[in-house]
């Protein structure tokens, strides 16, 4: 029997196969670090008198806490400032490369890794952040880890792990105009549920995936965790190689040829068997939005807010009731009638140049609705620069949106970009949990083009409504 893509990458990184109940020991090719989940890990190393085994396979950036305005000034919030300063000290003490605020390569870890060419097919990538699954778009086995594991990787460059099961997510057909990979992944999560991917690596495949750009693939892999999966993967192909070629950390010369030859072997064998399989019809998908407080609570934009009374299962009815109460929504309301206060375009899910371009395409010669504020936060300083080179910032500013510096920003509100209690957002980020974007804030997850159309109309909308 053949192997799946995930199994191939796993087997190529086996330092030691576990005996009996023992987990396998897996080698880690790239460890990304940020200020939130690392301080206690570095502290652990210090207490045990340990060094970072491979600083040359480790990269740090400041992203979760950083303000997106006035980045030339010290961070006003003393607690955030301490965390960022702690990362700087730790990186200096342990010899880890860091891209701090204001640096040309600073940005969200999951945007920075790929754009530097550090994320490569067939590698293992970890970070103390659940959205590390993003890097799976390159055919890397990439997953989020906790702080104890961050310390473990810093000390040993390995992780003890038990093999994941594999699930094929077949996405066949052609996406209609205005339907994006964000809509696809929201539909996948709504289909299999927030726990449906638990214990699995999802492998996205099929004609719709093959025709996606790298950035669209990253959006999809990014949200694998919202289906409970540890990782999402896509087999590398010409699109992947094209994206990587010439990037500063991509292989060059003879190394490039050797690498591509290896990368081409990273496909699921035709006789391999997945532990589970689901299929999504790409042709029938329409823009998707969430109405509830977890990413599985989503529906096509043309639908109405669900009615708890019509749900037979007691637990699911209660969950729906709780969600509607928190979200301040009435059952039966058309989703298109839901008015928002804020639109957030950004995050590791949808903060890349293509996302900004597609949103700017909608906003060109239009205005953000009165009483709606729109924040545009590029995923990295490099994305920001590229957008400015293309004049996109002028489109956003002319429309009345705020053009900000790079970071995680309102995706999780660890910096000053937050919702106030009861404030409602359409957000291109990944989580609509209670309070995620600010205490009492209400989040609807959407694609960049839906975000832009919503900003213009002031209610949840798709470009075809304009």
């Amino acid at each position, binding site marked *: 029997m053949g192997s799946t893509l995930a199994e191939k990458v796993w087997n190529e990184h086996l330092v030691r196969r576990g005996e009996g109940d023992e987990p396998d020991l897996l080698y880690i090719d790239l460890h990304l670090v940020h200020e939130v989940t690392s301080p206690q890990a570095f502290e652990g190393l210090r207490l045990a008198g340990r060094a970072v085994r491979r600083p*040359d*396979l480790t990269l740090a950036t400041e992203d979760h806490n950083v303000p997106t305005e006035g980045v030339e000034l010290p961070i006003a919030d003393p607690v955030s400032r301490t965390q960022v300063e702690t990362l700087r000290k730790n990186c200096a003490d342990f010899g880890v490369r860091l891209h701090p605020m204001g640096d040309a390569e600073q940005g969200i870890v999951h945007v920075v890794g790929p754009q530097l060419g550090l994320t490569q097919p067939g590698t293992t990538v970890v970070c103390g952040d*659940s959205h590390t699954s993003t890097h799976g778009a390159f055919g890397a086995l990439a997953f989020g880890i*906790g702080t104890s594991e961050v310390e473990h990787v810093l000390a040993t460059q390995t992780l003890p792990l038990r093999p994941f099961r594999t699930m094929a997510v077949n996405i066949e057909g052609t996406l209609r105009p205005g339907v994006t990979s964000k809509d696809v992944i929201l539909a996948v999560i709504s289909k299999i549920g927030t726990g449906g991917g638990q214990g699995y690596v999802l492998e996205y495949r099929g004609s719709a995936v093959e025709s996606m750009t790298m950035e669209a693939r990253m959006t999809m892999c990014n949200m694998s965790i919202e289906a409970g999966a*540890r990782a999402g993967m896509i087999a590398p192909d010409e699109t992947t190689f094209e994206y990587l070629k010439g990037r500063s950390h991509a292989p060059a010369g003879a*190394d490039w040829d050797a690498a591509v030859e290896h990368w081409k072997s990273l496909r699921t064998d035709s006789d391999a068997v997945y532990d589970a399989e689901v299929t999504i019809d790409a042709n029938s998908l329409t823009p998707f939005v969430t109405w509830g407080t977890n990413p599985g609570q989503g529906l096509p934009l043309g639908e109405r807010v669900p009615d708890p009374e019509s749900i037979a299962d007691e637990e699911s009815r209660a969950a729906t009731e709780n969600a509607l109460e928190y979200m301040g929504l009435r059952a039966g309301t058309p989703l298109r009638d839901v008015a928002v206060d804020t639109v957030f375009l950004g995050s590791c899910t949808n903060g890349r140049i293509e996302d900004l371009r597609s949103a700017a395409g909608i906003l060109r010669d239009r205005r953000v609705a009165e009483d709606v504020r729109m924040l545009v936060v590029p995923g990295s300083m490099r994305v920001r620069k590229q957008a400015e080179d293309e004049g996109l910032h002028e489109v956003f500013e002319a429309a009345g949106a705020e053009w900000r510096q790079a970071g995680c920003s309102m995706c999780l509100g*660890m910096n000053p970009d937050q919702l106030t209690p009861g404030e409602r957002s359409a957000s291109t980020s990944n989580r609509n949990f209670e*309070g995620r974007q600010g205490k009492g804030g209400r989040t609807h997850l959407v694609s960049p083009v839906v975000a832009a159309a919503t900003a213009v109309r002031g209610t949840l909308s798709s470009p075809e409504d304009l």
Partner: protein
Amino acid sequence: MEPFTTHTGIGVPLRRSNVDTDQIIPAVYLKRVARTGFEDALFAAWRADEDFILNVEPFSRGSVLVAGPDFGTGSSREHAVWALKDYGFRVVISSRFADIFRGNAGKQGLLAARCEQSDVELLWKLLESEPGTEVTVDLEARTVSAKDLTIGFEVDEYTRWRLLEGFDDIGLTMRSEDNIDAFERTRPSFLPTTQAASTG
């Protein structure tokens, strides 16, 4: 790490499914750089409601949390485990845990015990009808008992062994340092490093 064999404490019924890590500890508390002192952050948003279970005596003194399915979903923040432990919880019981949460719990000596949802319902009823009921969790025997009720739970064998022995992961891996050295010698030259950018 302190070994875990059995634990007895007040059971807390948390009748909610999909308790994500943003609920267990909101992001604002993640800015701290210390490893302890997160007890005030646990379920911070929910605790603002005076009827929330941890604001009700004797549940506020609980150490065994009995929750609905899909506990610990969302963010990888290990702070969720620290907050539960700092508050005084030693065991969380649920029919389904998010993978990362379960892994983090095992590393910090918090037992994530998987029970059937029907058994969780029985525990909920018992703990609600007789608040303050003590629950005993026996890791050796893999049982949860309270009053006349005894149910089994699952935890993977390796985590169970590590918890029983109180072993720390890095120390265990260091025993394989020769294997790591040997593996590193076989890594292909085209793999990237974060240090010097190639001229490519």
